[in-house]
């Protein structure tokens, strides 16, 4: 798999700290929903850094490749991508990568998506892909985020179950708290429907959520996870 040059064609702020980067990559062969790309930045002195970023755009389309990047305070790469990067700039990318945390339209079982924070990014690619080409199966999203201000893709969350951990909007029934057993039972597909569950987010969130889904009766082989550390710069 070789490194390819990607040109930034558009930038869109999603929240105060998250930004979507639209890239044009010549001879891009498409991706599967949930896959990521490696991005390589090289400084003038030759120092280079590689990081993995999830693809946010739908699979199977011909629009630009979109990555949504959350800026991490101590990050080496993300502050540049989420801040200084400008339209017309060029990056090196390789991908698409990953065959585990992916959803294919041929899958006929129901799907429960579970996102914590910026873990929404690969999950949104799955949701967008499913919306573009509905395959008759149920796909639900449970999205846990700190406050209404930290919601990424806020205009595309109709029908999603939004759970807040720090501060909920005033009209919300559920008070702000971390995901718990009652949430899983109330806001996700029942285990009896045998959904495939895709859980993505920070390590602590993913480990806790996977445990909750197991204790709610879901089987381990139907749970797929992708986690990143708080320092996944």
């Amino acid at each position: 798999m070789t490194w390819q040059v990607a040109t930034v064609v558009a930038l869109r702020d999603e929240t105060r700290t998250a930004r979507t980067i639209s890239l044009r990559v010549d001879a891009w062969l498409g991706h599967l929903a949930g896959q990521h790309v490696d991005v390589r930045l090289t400084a003038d002195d030759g120092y280079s850094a590689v990081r993995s970023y999830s693809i946010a755009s739908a699979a199977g389309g011909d629009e630009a490749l979109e990555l949504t990047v959350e800026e991490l305070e101590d990050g080496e790469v993300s502050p540049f991508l989420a801040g200084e990067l400008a339209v017309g700039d060029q990056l090196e990318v390789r991908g698409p990568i990953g065959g585990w945390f992916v959803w294919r339209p041929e899958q006929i079982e129901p799907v429960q998506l579970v996102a914590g924070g910026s873990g929404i990014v690969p999950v949104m690619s799955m949701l967008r892909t499913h919306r573009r080409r509905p395959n008759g199966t149920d796909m639900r999203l449970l999205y846990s985020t700190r406050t209404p201000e930290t919601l990424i893709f806020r205009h595309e969350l109709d029908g999603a179950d939004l759970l807040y951990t720090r501060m909920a909007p005033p009209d919300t029934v559920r008070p702000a708290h971390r995901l718990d057993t009652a949430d899983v039972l109330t806001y996700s597909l029942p285990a009896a429907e045998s959904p495939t569950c895709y859980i993505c987010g920070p390590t602590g969130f993913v480990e806790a959520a996977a445990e909750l889904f197991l204790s709610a009766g879901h089987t381990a082989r139907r749970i797929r996870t992708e986690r990143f550390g708080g320092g996944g710069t």
Partner: protein
Amino acid sequence: MTAIGLDGNAAAGWLAEVFRPDATAAVGECAGCGRRAPLADVNVFGGDVGLVLRCVACESVLLRMVRSPGRAWLDLRGLTFLEFASME
């Protein structure tokens, strides 16, 4: 990819340099404790010149990969096997 807490999904780009099918979807058995899981579901450390995958259950080293220009070196001692879905 230098941070603790990333999982095997982040190693897919590295492994794509040496495996033709995606290796993160392959199930590996830990030689330390016998846990079987896709390589996507393990812990990943390193990421500049070297990569280390460790079992999430017993923390044994499963796989090490080191790269230098034009060369990649793979140590699979920590895995008793890797099971790939058959390729057409």
